[in-house]
């Protein structure tokens, strides 16, 4: 699960990680009072959306007066922000974070992530703060330090000191930096994060070590034990179709094409997208109804899929393993009768009780196109959209 920057900072502050003072705003009025409340003569106006690359899209502005703060806020708030990660349509900005400006002496990168190859949490540290860490790793790998952390000991004093020192933190501030990094690690571990990225972590002219920016994501599988994190979910950041699908226990991602895909299992769903592309057409979505789809899920799947008006044909590709094909066929027939779609539906069933499943489809009286193999199904759906 993703959270906003201001939420990540709230979580971090609760774990004793220092951040700048800031106020979340939903309107220009709130921006005005935030500026007054924070005081000083320099502020940062930051768009709060989940996608990364906000700075590149113009969603982060440093301002020197209340008037400038308001005009920056007016530019950003309620407007779509396009970043390298949002797609061309961008994401509407509904909240701003107004922060006090700080005097920056140096910008550092600090990140924690689960290293899939080493199967440990890794602390990544670089003196090149403010840059994408992938770029640092590619261009100047000698400026990136990775420390794998033993889950039994946590981030040790020695390792934290080595990391802080590598990143160029002055000796006088090493103790502070060690405390910062250990608190960051604790926030990561205690909340089942999957990413905690502080970019930049800054040393200020006041001799503080603080998280100027913060990005955190959390392991969906562990949310059951962190209800306070679940509360941070922001439905405005997710597409309506994807929310509807997830509530039905479906995994759905909308894409640009015109062939709707309804598949059981994520691997087979990806393979189904692959073959549609191989045959020269575009999938309209990824949709995994799970290994054992119920009638209700199949109905929900069709409903979500057909709300996308670009869909010109639907390919149902089911390999019934545990879920028997006759049960799936019953679900399909019920769903299609209830929904009554005009678009051609191509159904490919394989696996347990496949003969009974095919009989149910044939006797349903629905105008379905049945296919024997995945290849056959893909050819037929491509033919259907080409007319």
């Amino acid at each position, binding site marked *: 699960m993703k959270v906003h920057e201001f939420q990540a900072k709230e979580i971090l502050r609760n774990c004793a990680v220092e951040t700048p003072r800031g106020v979340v705003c939903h309107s220009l009025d709130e921006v005005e009072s935030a500026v007054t409340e924070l005081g000083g003569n320099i502020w940062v106006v930051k768009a709060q959306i989940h996608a990364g690359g906000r700075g590149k899209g113009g969603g982060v502005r440093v301002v020197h007066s209340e008037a400038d703060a308001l005009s920056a806020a007016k530019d950003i708030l309620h407007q779509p922000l396009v970043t390298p990660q949002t797609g061309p349509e961008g994401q509407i900005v509904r909240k701003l974070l107004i922060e006090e400006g700080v005097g920056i002496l140096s910008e550092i990168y600090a990140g924690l992530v*689960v290293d899939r190859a080493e199967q440990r949490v890794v602390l990544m540290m670089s003196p090149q703060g403010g840059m994408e860490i992938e770029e640092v790793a590619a261009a100047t790998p000698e400026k990136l330090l990775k420390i794998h952390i033993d889950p039994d000991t946590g981030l040790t004093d020695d390792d934290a000191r080595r990391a802080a020192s590598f990143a160029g933190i002055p000796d006088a501030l090493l103790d502070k930096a060690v405390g910062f990094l250990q608190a960051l690690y604790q926030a990561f571990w205690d909340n089942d994060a*999957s990413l905690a990225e502080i970019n930049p972590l800054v040393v200020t002219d006041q001799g503080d070590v603080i998280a100027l920016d913060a990005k955190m994501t959390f*392991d969906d599988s562990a949310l059951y034990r962190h209800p306070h994190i679940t509360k941070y979910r922001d439905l405005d950041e997710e597409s309506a179709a994807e929310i509807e699908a997830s509530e039905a226990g479906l995994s759905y991602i909308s894409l640009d094409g015109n062939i709707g895909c309804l598949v059981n299992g994520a*691997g*087979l769903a*990806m*393979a189904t997208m692959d073959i549609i592309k191989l045959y020269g057409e575009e999938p309209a979505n*990824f949709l995994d109804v799970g290994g054992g789809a119920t009638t209700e899920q199949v109905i929900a799947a069709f409903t979500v899929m057909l709300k996308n008006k670009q869909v010109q044909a639907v390919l149902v590709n089911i390999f019934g393993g545990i879920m028997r094909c006759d049960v799936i066929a019953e679900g399909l027939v019920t769903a299609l009768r209830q929904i009554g779609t005009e678009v051609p539906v191509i159904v490919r069933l*394989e696996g347990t009780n496949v003969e009974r499943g095919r009989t149910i489809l044939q006797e349903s009286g629905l105008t379905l196109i049945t296919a024997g193999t995945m290849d056959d199904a893909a050819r037929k759906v491509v033919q259907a959209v080409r007319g």
Partner: protein
Amino acid sequence: MGILIDSRTRVLCQGITGYRGSFFSHRAIEYGTRIVGGVVPGRGGQKHLNLPVFDTVEQAREMTGATASVLFVPPHAARDAMLEAIDAGIELVVCITEGIPILDMLRIKERLAGSQTRLIGPNCPGIITPGQCNIGIMPASIYQPGKIGVISRSGTLFYEAVAQLCREGFGQSTCIGIGADVVPGMTFVDCLELFRDDHGTEAVLLIGEIGGAAEEEAAQYLAAEAYPKPVIAYIAGRHAPPYRRMGHSSAIIAAGKGGTENKIQALRDANVIVVESPVEFGMTTRKAVR
């Protein structure tokens, strides 16, 4: 032949009295798998499916001589159930459970290192040596005994591939679903090592997907080993958009990493025959195995 399990393997089921544990144990017994008992804390001394139920894995192992265990326990109980099986010296633990927190798995991996246990999964369909032993949730009827070893991250695509193999007349030595989690137990490399030394396996089919670098690691291993058997591979998700998790927790392309191009190139460089289309598993295997 085959790897890890055969007709003599004695198997425990942790969580045997639950709906899924009960259902799949029953099916496994019907298939001929030697399920010898169950483990459910607090239910020791009872009988289920006409099998003894024990409070702990250690008791169950001592009383039944089991060397393998399959887990059908809820995600919040899975870490402790796995740790218990590892500590009891179970040689093969198969964890079907989906939705185990990543940090729990990091703890499990620490405990596995230096133990005598191999872990398959979590979030996996299980392992089958056709005609001998079926552990997990795979539809046993689609498998046939033969000489192709199969390793897969996904479930239903795995069944699809096996069905295609059978259509072309290729049975399987052992099929392993290693699962689609971010932190898996056995990897492609672990399984490839075992298939290399198995006289019953003539070729290996590897079914990967986007996300992580497990396929690249497999390629590196195959090249370094000058692997003595043909390896065929398919990578799902060639057209998956970046920064979107495609159903499986591990299936994501981010920051230019985890895409299929790299994986396919690495595999080709290691002399792996790449299946171009997910409808060509059978045909490609026919070309590779003469």
